[in-house]
């Protein structure tokens, strides 16, 4: 067990936990930030995607000991009122079916658009390829990312 001060969604929070514990379970079990989802545990599905600094990472493969001073952002902290351009585009297109993978999709998309604000259709698809949607909302995901990209703030 070790003690960590983690910067999560703009707040510093202390936790005592096994250093190997993945951030996924720190967020879910300890901080009850359940928007970050457990899908596979082996970084294959993307349901657990969060931001570490500006980068989208798989929290199921991110030991708490490796986070250090870096800012962690989860779906709960992506925007104050659920009004990030990607979230708004998701609602406009009515993307979700079951909705389970969508937080991960949104976290991947929002980090991607920060690094590539004007992506082509193929670039969008490739960027989103690591996130599985079992319901098959892929065509709507592509459309929503495109809409978010065309809005000013993305």
């Amino acid at each position, binding site marked *: *067990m070790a003690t960590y001060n983690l910067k999560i969604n703009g707040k510093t929070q202390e936790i005592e936990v*096994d250093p190997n*514990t*993945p951030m996924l*379970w720190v967020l*879910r*079990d*300890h901080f*009850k*930030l*359940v*928007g*970050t*989802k*457990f*899908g*596979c*545990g*082996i970084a*294959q*599905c993307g*349901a657990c995607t969060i931001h570490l600094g500006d980068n989208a990472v798989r929290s199921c493969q991110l030991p708490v000991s490796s986070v250090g001073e870096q800012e962690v952002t*989860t*779906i*709960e902290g*992506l925007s104050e009122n*659920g009004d990030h351009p990607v*979230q708004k585009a*998701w*609602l406009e297109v*009515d993307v*979700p*079916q*079951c*909705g*389970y*993978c*969508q*937080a991960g999709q*949104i976290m991947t998309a929002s980090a991607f658009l920060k690094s590539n604000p004007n992506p082509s*259709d193929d670039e969008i*698809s*490739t960027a*989103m*390829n*690591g*996130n*599985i*949607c*079992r*319901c*098959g*909302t*892929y*065509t*709507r*995901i*592509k459309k929503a990312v495109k809409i978010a990209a065309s809005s000013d703030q993305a």
Partner: protein
Amino acid sequence: MTFVKTKIGRRSFIRTSALAGGGMVVGFSWLASCKMTPEEVNSLPKEWFDINGFLKIADNGLVTIMSPNPEIGQNVKTAMPMIVADELDVDWKDVIVEQAPLNMDVFQRQLAGGSQSIRAGWEGLRMAGATARKMLKQAAAKAWEVPEEEITTSMGMLHHKASNKSASYGEMASAAVSIEKPDEAPETIEAPEEIELKDIKDFTIIGTDRKNVDGPSIVTGKPLFGIDTYEEGMLTAMIVHPPAFGLTFKSMNADEAKGMPGIKDIFHVNVYPEGAEKQWSDGGGIPELVAIVGESTWQCMQAKKALKVEWDGPSTLESTASYGDDLNKLLDAPVKEPARKDGDFNKAFNSAAKKIESIYSAPFLAHNTMEPMNFYAKVTDDKALLSGPIQTPEFLEKTVSSVLDMPLENIEIDMTRMGGGFGRRLYGSFGVEAAVISKKAKAPIKLVYSREDDMTQGTYRPAYKVKFKAGLDAENNLIAWYVKGVGTNDDLIFENRFPAGAVDNYLAEKTSLETKITTGAWRAPRSNFIAGAEQSFMDEVAELAGKDPIEFRLALFDRAIKDPVGDPEKNDYDPERYAGVLKLVKEKSNWSNSGDKARGVSAYYCHNSYVAQVLDLTMNNNQPKVDKVWCAVDCGIVINPISAKNQIEGGIIDGIGHATYSQMTFENGVPQQENFDDYRLIRNTEAPKAIESYFVDNGIDPTGLGEPSLPPVVGALANAMYKATGKRVYNQPFILEKEVVG
């Protein structure tokens, strides 16, 4: 106007009582009213009050509508309340939707399966809204002392034109409570025995785009799913199940694991003790497991690795490869009775001018819902509270009652939003496991499966094989059709579906192979394979006849319309509606002009709905890349078009994905795929670039939509691949180009 019997007890009433928030509860006690006295109703928790649609009307005009059925991503949580709200005549923006708990005294068919939520719920939901509206009118007539028939409603308001009186539904509910005398029974307004439903042309909400009511919660990561349950004092539980199908628990050594951080207990559990009454929904439930109970999920996962369990069983267990041989033998073996026989197939086939014969196959599939199986249970000596993702809460409650030896009324089941269902959560043995573990651990627990547990303890889509034979006469007319289907624990064939009724000499046979690999319903059971195989073979026959695939099919539907073979009542489809979707997709896709794309067509009927598709693709490094799919659907009245299209798109992508990439195989009883690194699911770059959906507007009562777009797309894909390569694919998954099941 449509009049329906309301099926409402005569003691139904408007009952009002003050809510903490100042609103009014207007309860309409429905079927339950024949069982409950007003006193009993009064003592119920407010959220549990009603039936068939529960309405809470607040004095500020907000209306809460309960959504009775489990939500698995098919979006009934939006669509079902839309139906109530339309008949109630309120503004959709004033509606708040809540998920109802399991209460079979009050609600009907709280089950997600067979694409039947809307079809089965349609009349009851309309009735719920219409009766509530009628009773509000009755209350207004009493309050204003005017004839009820002179009162009209619009968008949550009651009007009486002659006296120029108006009141909101909320105000009328408030007025009703103010006249209630504390010592007397509540003001009673009897529900009518017959109720007038709206003319479908007067719908204001049904048929319009309404976004997912949980959308804002989903995109902001609010707790919605069973796995998001965290209750005070709750522990986490995980299980270890037999590593191979056919093994049973022998012994374990938990010494090391029990000493690990956070671990509270590790024990062997008998989930289904002797004498326990199982339901069909227990599916592949494994009788004996090992449970690990700890403080956190990660700690349980570590203990699981350290735990040593020994299993008993024969040294040789079942393998996928041997199923291939066994299914082939069954394909050739005679059956006792044909499933359907019209004319004389053998005679016609033997004398046919042209003949064709093909065999198609498909492997086992796992459901792989993105949210792994999980359930929360808090079992005490006399009560069980369960909450989680379940498509069949009613049956789970029965099994839990039997296993815990506890009366049904002491068991509460809450339904959470589900991170996918696809049939997997029809089989709720994980809920039973949670209850048994909570009881033994003497603590509230949330059972969570790892992805590996989820994939390797499945209730899989069966492996299938089908043999077709067809014969043409000298004029290239189809005169003989034979189908024989075999599957693991399933016999595959719907003998009265197309082309039964359209071919003079028709013979359908079916049989199944018993296996220890547990199988069950997987999105569009049987149809998910037989549709693609049949529609692929149909193209083979059309080509042999030298005819256009769509014209060939239309000619058969024409035969079934004008001169059906056999008893037309037996045929499980309407040939006119079938032909209708095919014609619609032909027009929308501009069928004869495919440009440089390889194009395939397919049509299928299942879950009471008709779907036809045209699919364009290009081959890229020997892999199909689907460019576009056009889809025509006849599911009667469409409740919520934006969401209906989502279901169509999802079914198409699901169908393409599994037929192209996915398989579950077994060696000596051991599942060979455990997680998404070796079980391939379709991904974003592999999905069609565009999907266009069109609905037939015919005003017929709504039918299924969650499943019907999946089965035919496999045929459209196979037919387009044939166009592109000149080589027909017979075995799924298509990218392997070899038989997986043998």
